[in-house]
């Protein structure tokens, strides 16, 4: 299984990343992509600023991807997470999973996102529509619950 993890300020192209994973790989029968975007929260936000822990962000996402590879029969995983100040509508995160069948690809993509939200060292700060900096986004119990459902007994 191939794993690609990139942490970058620049935008990404989901179609180009899918092509990277699937070209010349006729055994792949399923591709699931998830793209997370910056919301404006009903006009309240001008931007989200994403801070990360360089080094650990890559290492932790790699650990999560390797864990997914032990749980599902995957052919490839790509995770790209942006940092810096991102305006509403901008891409924040991309997860792609490929497999011979869809169930593994769907489940692994959900697992990757659930774990990424609670374990990858990124933090979001709000920038408000009036130009001032707002609060740090608070972690949600909902995200912890989503991650916990993957824990094996």
């Amino acid at each position, binding site marked *: 299984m191939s794993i690609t993890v990139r942490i970058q300020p620049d935008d990404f192209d989901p179609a180009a990343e899918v092509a990277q994973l699937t070209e010349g790989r006729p055994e792949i029968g399923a591709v699931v992509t998830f793209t997370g975007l910056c919301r404006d929260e009903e006009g309240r936000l001008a931007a989200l600023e994403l801070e990360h822990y360089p080094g650990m962000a890559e290492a932790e996402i790699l650990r999560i991807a390797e864990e997914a590879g032990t749980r599902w029969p995957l052919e490839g995983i790509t995770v790209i997470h942006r940092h810096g100040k991102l305006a509403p509508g901008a891409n924040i*995160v991309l997860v792609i999973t490929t497999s011979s069948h869809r169930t593994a690809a769907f489940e692994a993509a959900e697992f990757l996102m659930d774990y990424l939200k609670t374990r990858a060292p990124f*933090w*979001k700060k709000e920038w408000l529509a009036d130009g001032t900096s707002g609060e*740090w986004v608070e*972690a949600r119990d909902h995200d912890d619950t989503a991650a916990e459902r993957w824990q094996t007994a």
Partner: protein
Amino acid sequence: MKILYFAWVRERIGMPEEEIALPAEVSTPADLLAFLSKRGPEYESAFERPEIIRVAVDQTHVDHDMPIGDAREIALFPPMTGG
């Protein structure tokens, strides 16, 4: 030991990282949080609810009762909100 701070922990303390000589009795993240909280009001404010602070030793998540050992760097930060 190199100590790193992120997000509102970094803002409250007023710096992203610092080098601190830790006394021998600081052997776990819980000990470290208690030790740092005594360094001044900014630390006290950052760690007023120590139980919610997440800890990474050499870039790996650890619980508050794990031994720090001879770590190179320890990072202290709020619960993560990426994705």
